[in-house]
């Protein structure tokens, strides 16, 4: 278990011991011998976030921490009933999860708090109360003759479009941090206290386990077709987040919910809803109102790579890799080529308008989904071309250290065949996700889960995120070395501090800063004061590091004996 982060007044609570770390400011003779291990550690061998990527992350983190009910920057004109905030929250959380897992595993507080904030936001009334509309269903789609009373509980029945993300994010959080907070009864609470409508105050409480069990049962009850998005409408895309959510849930809890994934795929194939020879599928299967296993009817099959194909593809890659990659390219690679052309020439913005999408915002969402799908399957050529398209046609913004592409409703196609319209879901989330996913990032997130070994490794904390960007934080267990690079954040400071936790008290560590060996450090020694910073052991066994931050600072703390 990772300890709770402390925000102590370090100047008061640090206990400065008597011995001084061998100073780098002195002569060479004053240093302890440099250990072979520290020489062997090259920071360039480890993941490092670029300035642009750090800007994307800062934007996602900032949005996650907006005050409850402040949806600035989220607004979309894609008028699906649930709106898109919940999807932005969820996909943003999963983007942060993949960064946590693969870029800065030894710097957790920023990501942990932001992922948790996204999960909390998914319980905000602005998000879940939309279900009261969706659950009423109606004549559209030919399922009913009229709207129904609907129901309020957003988890009890259907609404995989919300509960899948609670499962996915909650399970990812538990896997990453070894913190089972979402297992608690009522960890997810939805409190209806609206005025002017309703039959009184009511609360709905669920644990992560409740949600996993609920979704699993709905999949089984549907004859392995899935849990419905809206009543009697089961989308293949909507199953993907909960499918991979089961993988993390099983890893953390030792359950076997994941065994339904193959059964579900096989069911779709057997019923003709997926054609594995042509890589086409029915985006949605309609069912009877009463029974999700009855009267299942597909819509005409379409290629799995376009429209909302990426929604499932980017996640299902984790458990159905070969098929998902093959579906991306299609027979002879034609599906991918045609889709890429479609999205790079502005053709996507000319797609017929629908009455729930008056400005083609959905077209931009589909653009973003394809981009994220291309990134996950490792199609670097497509990703590079689409990111270049984004740079040319979308007006990116740097603002307070955040980098993103704000919404544009200009979906006209210019003389060069480009559209400048972009939806916030794409500008806030999909482009960052694709830029950060160098191929198979979700595959790794679900197939290389963390456990006790990772939870016990050294990591840094108490970083002031306003003055500091952490572009590198990686513990290499093969070299017993922690590699950390800090860069200036949007608020200028001369000096910053951070804490290194979970160093072994019995070991001596070699410390290198910006290629300069500072010397050796252990619990028997104290802090150094070489003019550029200090290191101080604290009572709780952590190491407080103070450093200048005018430019990037790279530390290597490696066990030397």
């Amino acid at each position, binding site marked *: 278990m990772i300890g709770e982060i402390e925000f102590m007044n370090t100047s008061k609570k640090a206990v400065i011991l008597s011995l001084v770390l061998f100073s780098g400011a002195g002569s060479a003779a004053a240093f302890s011998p440099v250990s072979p291990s520290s020489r062997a550690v090259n920071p360039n061998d480890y993941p490092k976030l670029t300035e642009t990527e750090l800007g994307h992350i800062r934007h996602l983190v900032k949005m996650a921490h907006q005050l409850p009910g402040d949806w600035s920057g989220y607004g979309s004109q894609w008028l699906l009933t649930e709106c898109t905030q919940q999807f932005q929250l969820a996909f943003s959380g999963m983007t942060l999860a993949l960064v946590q897992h693969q870029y800065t595993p030894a710097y957790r507080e920023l990501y942990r708090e932001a992922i948790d904030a996204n999960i909390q936001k998914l319980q905000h009334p602005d998000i879940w109360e939309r279900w009261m509309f969706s659950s009423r269903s109606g004549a559209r789609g030919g399922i009913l003759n009229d709207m129904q009373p609907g*129901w*309020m*509980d957003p*988890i*009890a*029945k259907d609404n995989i479009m919300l509960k899948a993300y609670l499962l996915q994010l909650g399970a990812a959080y538990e896997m990453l941090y070894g913190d089972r907070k979402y297992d608690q009864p009522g960890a997810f609470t939805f*409190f209806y*206290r609206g*005025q002017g409508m309703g*039959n*009184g*105050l*009511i*609360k*709905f*409480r*669920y644990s992560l386990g*409740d949600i996993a069990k609920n979704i699993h049962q709905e999949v089984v009850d549907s004859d392995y077709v899935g849990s419905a998005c809206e009543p009697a409408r089961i989308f293949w895309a909507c199953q993907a987040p909960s499918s991979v959510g089961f993988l993390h849930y099983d890893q953390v809890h030792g359950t076997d919910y994941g065994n339904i994934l193959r059964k579900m795929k096989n069911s779709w194939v057997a019923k003709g809803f997926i054609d594995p020879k042509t890589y086409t599928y029915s985006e949605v299967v309609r069912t009877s109102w*009463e029974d999700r296993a009855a009267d299942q009817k597909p819509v005409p099959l379409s290629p799995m790579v376009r429209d909302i194909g990426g929604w499932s593809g980017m996640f299902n890659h984790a458990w159905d890799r070969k098929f998902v990659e093959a579906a991306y390219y299609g027979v002879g690679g034609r599906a991918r080529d045609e889709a890429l052309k479609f999205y790079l020439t502005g053709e996507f913005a000319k797609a017929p308008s629908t009455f729930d999408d008056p400005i083609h915002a959905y077209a931009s969402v589909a653009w973003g989904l394809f981009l994220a799908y291309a990134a996950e399957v490792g199609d670097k050529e497509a990703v590079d071309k689409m990111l270049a398209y984004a740079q040319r046609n979308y007006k990116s913004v740097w603002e307070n250290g955040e980098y993103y592409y704000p919404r544009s409703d200009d979906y006209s196609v210019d003389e060069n065949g480009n559209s400048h319209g972009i939806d916030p879901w794409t500008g806030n989330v999909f482009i960052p996700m694709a830029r950060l996913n160098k191929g198979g990032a979700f595959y790794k997130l679900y197939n290389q889960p963390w456990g006790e070994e990772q939870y016990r490794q050294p990591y840094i904390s108490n970083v002031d995120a306003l003055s500091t960007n952490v572009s590198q934080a990686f513990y290499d267990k093969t070299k017993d070395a922690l590699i950390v690079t800090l860069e200036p954040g949007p608020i200028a400071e001369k000096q910053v501090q951070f804490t290194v936790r979970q160093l072994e008290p019995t070991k001596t560590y070699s410390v290198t800063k910006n290629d300069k060996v500072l010397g050796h450090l252990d619990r028997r020694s104290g802090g150094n004061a070489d003019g550029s910073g200090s290191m101080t052991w604290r009572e709780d066994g952590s190491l407080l590091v103070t450093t200048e931050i005018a430019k990037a600072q790279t530390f290597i703390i490696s066990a030397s004996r």
Partner: protein
Amino acid sequence: MRHCIKISVAFSASVLLAEAAVHALDIPVASGKVSMQITSCLVSSVKSPGKTYDCTTEANKSVAACNGTELCEIPIGYNLTAGKDIDPGSGFLGKRVKIVYQCGAVSQQWGPYNQDDHASLVMDCSGAWW
């Protein structure tokens, strides 16, 4: 010492009388204990209106556990029907719960809502009833 006891007894009596007066006026107190009582609690089948269960006793047990707080949560799952499904096979949408309760002389209806093991009605005697 005896003088102090007399003062204490007099003070306690005043408090009790004042509290009784508040109840007599049927105004829920802003804080402290309130008089919340379940008038009726009914679980009924949506498709078979004849299938009902009087859950007043079960609901009052929940209220009693709240020990006079202004807000009191009553779980509205199968706890209200002694763990039984009054209309087997009717599913989540098949049963509804309606509770009428009193805050002093003021009567409130909460529900109907679906009978739901994950749901609790929050009975409210705080006076904010608009």
